[in-house]
């Protein structure tokens, strides 16, 4: 907890404003990701699904993005590792996203290199129809690592970090599809961290899991936080309070409020946020 988040004082001012003119609570030098006035469109700029979003995501912390369905939180997450490039008509219409100070939409940025540093865990666990070992080693192999012992080491380490090693060490060569849902998701996390990214994006990682599996993933997130900057999209308010240090609330493509998680849930400065976190809509 080394953040230097300056608590906003003028409540009236905040209540009247949306995120666009929200003062940045994170100092620039501490932020891993800077989202600066970003608007984003899926249809070549005809309609924006993200509208002038600005906020900074601190390094080494868990940041949760919350909001009702369709508010743009997943879209924003996919902007961070440029997964939206897969949609041909998608376009960042205004603003910049800077990761480690680099504008990631600049022409000299290779999305492939970006994704090696900004890993992603998906809503529905999606291991490849290959063995457990091959799944974890996949990212390393595509980087051209062929050394067997290096791979073995990395696979073991990643599985251990993902708290899966003890469960699968005897069947590394059996199909990943034979694991339980929670295990598969942890395998996907292991696969993601095997390439040692700086940032791990998680898109509702527990939505397809039962409560017990969810609890294990949450534990895992807490552990991983020490090594990685984590951005997590979640629908589950309790989860956000449990795992995240900071929370951003989105509504209809706008960032309504962004603050320490505790503040957001205990003392939201915007009415909308309060309605949402207290379950009055969403």
């Amino acid at each position, binding site marked *: 907890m080394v953040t230097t988040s300056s608590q906003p004082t003028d409540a009236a001012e905040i209540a009247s404003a949306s995120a666009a003119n929200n003062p940045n609570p994170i100092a620039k030098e501490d932020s891993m990701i800077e989202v600066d006035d970003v608007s984003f469109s899926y249809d070549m700029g005809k309609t924006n699904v993200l509208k002038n979003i600005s906020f900074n995501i601190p390094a080494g912390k868990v940041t949760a993005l919350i909001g009702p369905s369709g508010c743009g939180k997943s879209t924003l997450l996919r902007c961070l590792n440029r997964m939206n490039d*897969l949609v041909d008509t998608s376009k960042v219409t205004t603003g910049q996203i800077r990761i480690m100070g680099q504008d990631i939409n600049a022409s000299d940025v290779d999305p492939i290199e970006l*994704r090696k540093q900004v890993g992603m865990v998906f809503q529905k666990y*999606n291991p490849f129809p290959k063995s457990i070992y091959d799944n974890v080693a*996949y990212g390393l192999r595509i980087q051209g690592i062929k050394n067997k012992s290096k791979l073995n080491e990395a696979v073991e380490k990643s599985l251990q970090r993902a708290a899966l090693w003890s469960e699968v060490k005897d069947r590394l060569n059996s199909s990943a599809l034979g694991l339980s849902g929670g295990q598969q998701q942890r395998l996907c996390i292991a*696969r993601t961290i095997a390439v040692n990214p700086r940032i791990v994006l998680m898109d509702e990682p527990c939505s397809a899991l039962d409560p017990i599996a969810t609890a294990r993933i949450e534990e895992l997130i807490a552990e991983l936080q020490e090594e990685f900057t984590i951005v997590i999209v979640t629908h589950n308010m309790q989860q956000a309070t449990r795992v995240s240090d900071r929370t951003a609330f989105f509504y209809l493509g706008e960032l309504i409020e962004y603050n320490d998680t505790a503040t957001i849930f205990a003392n939201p400065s915007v009415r909308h946020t309060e309605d949402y976190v207290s379950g009055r809509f969403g």
Partner: protein
Amino acid sequence: MATHFKRKGKRVLGVGRQDAIRFFFGGNAMISTFVLGAICIFLAREAAMFFPQHQRELEVFRLTGQEYTNFVIEEMDEYTEVKSLTNQAFYQEMNEAYGIQRGLVDSFGALSGNLFDDGEDLIEELEDARDAVDDADEEEAKTLAQTELDGIQAKWDNFLQAELGKADRTAVDSFGRLGKKEWQELLDAMTAWDPVEDQPPALVEAAKSEMNKGMAAFDAARMLIGSAGSELSKLRGELIKVTTAIKDEAVADKSSAARKKALLEGSVNAATKEDRARLKEQAEKITIRKNFPYAERITALEGSREKHKAAIAALEADLKPGIAALPTDLASAQAQDLVSRIREKGPELIAYLDQSLQESADWRYDQPVSWITSVTSFFFGKDWVTNSSFHDFYGLLPLFTGSLLISIIALIVAIPFSLGAAIYVNRLAGPKQQNIIKPIIELIGAIPSVVLGFFGIIVLGEALREISQVPWLSWVPGFPMQERLNILNAGLLLALMAVPTIFTLCEDAINNVPSSFTEASLALGGSKLQTVMRVVVPTAVSGILAAILLGFGRVIGETMVVLLVAGNQIAIPDFGLGVGVITQPAHTMTGIIAQEMGEVTSGTIHYRALFSVGLVLFTISLLINISARRIIKRFGLAA
């Protein structure tokens, strides 16, 4: 109350209108099942009748001694192959080492032939004039004749000059063996040529003797090999004659009862008295036997075994030294190749001859033919010979090999193209390209096969042959091609036909790979192609495999292209050529049905043999279909 909801409408025999409609639709749906069943039944029925009939034919084949004859025929065939290889090698070598000499000799022959033809009258005159000079007794007459002769001689000289001046080098020396210099030398030498004496110029004589001398050793070996089989050949001729006669008699005997009956009927109904008497007489000549006395007839073969043994011994006695005497150091690489093949084949041939002789010695005419032989000699028989005066063979092997070879080539060519195109279209091409490429590939599937076959005859065959004759490509196995219509040509066309099938199904399979896999790979920093090659293709592999299988089904069942383009030579291609085997002509299972079905009478063994081939094709296609669906079902993604 319940009556409100009672069924309305008339019912006939307990069947309502709705039921009738339902039955109508159901009945139509049943038709496909019925057709499949009917195909099975019709094919299986003819095939089931084929095997017993085939067994009886084989029985006759054995009882008449034709089977014994066949040993000799096959021995002869094997030997002839070695013999013709020797001849090929000999002429290759001669052309390579003594090309100019042979060119001189042949060109002289051609030139003098032309002169004889064109100057026929003049030569006759010349001859007469010379005779006149010789015959003249008196001095005066001699001078007179001499003057006349001089005139004619001058005329001839002029004619010769003119003809030689006109002579077209490319027409005379059609193989291009002579250079400009040699050609000129020959023409110069020819100016002194005398048509009456017909002595070749010294130049030609020298060339001839040089060639003969140089090739003498090879020629001697060739002659030795060539004459080795003369006794066997004679025996072959005799045996064919004898056994065919027995067979003809036996066949006639079988139908004697029917013929007698027909003749007797005819004799009753015939118009004139003489006709009646004649027919009756003919009928009475026919004796009906219960059993044809094969044992009695087969005695005609007595002594053949001894002759056979002697012939083989004689063959081997000449063949061994003949092959040993083949020169080793040859100028022509092709001839060298051929000779080494002969050297390999020699011992094989001798081993084969010994074995065949042994088998023929153990052969008995009255050994029963089992139904297993009937089946195996169909499935593994190496000959398919019909309408033969000797014996008809129905062996599937050459047709099956042809079909298989052509299909394999088609697949080898089609798979990379279709799979590559499927990956490209589905993952790399933009929507605009997709909208162009996909319909065009679909259009390929609609090109009538007979049109492709026509294209293969007119364009592709010609193009392939020209490519194969390019000198710097001669290292490619099988080049230059002997035949324009061959396995390769058919295989390439079928590859094009298989492309739409394989492409469409592969594209489907690739398309069905869930996007979550692609996303996971991309999120890990995989490039587009790494994702395709390491995740998409491996995931779609079952679909791709099924696509290939169905593509195989498509090509092995294709008829018109192979009928038009494969060359239709019923023989197992010579695998001794290695990969070059693909430049040989072949026949196929589909092709044989298409070619022969129109000409057979229903119910004959030939008709049934064709149906049996059809049954084999049908079974193959069913197996392919079933396994393709199994693969998709078992290994496919639950999409």
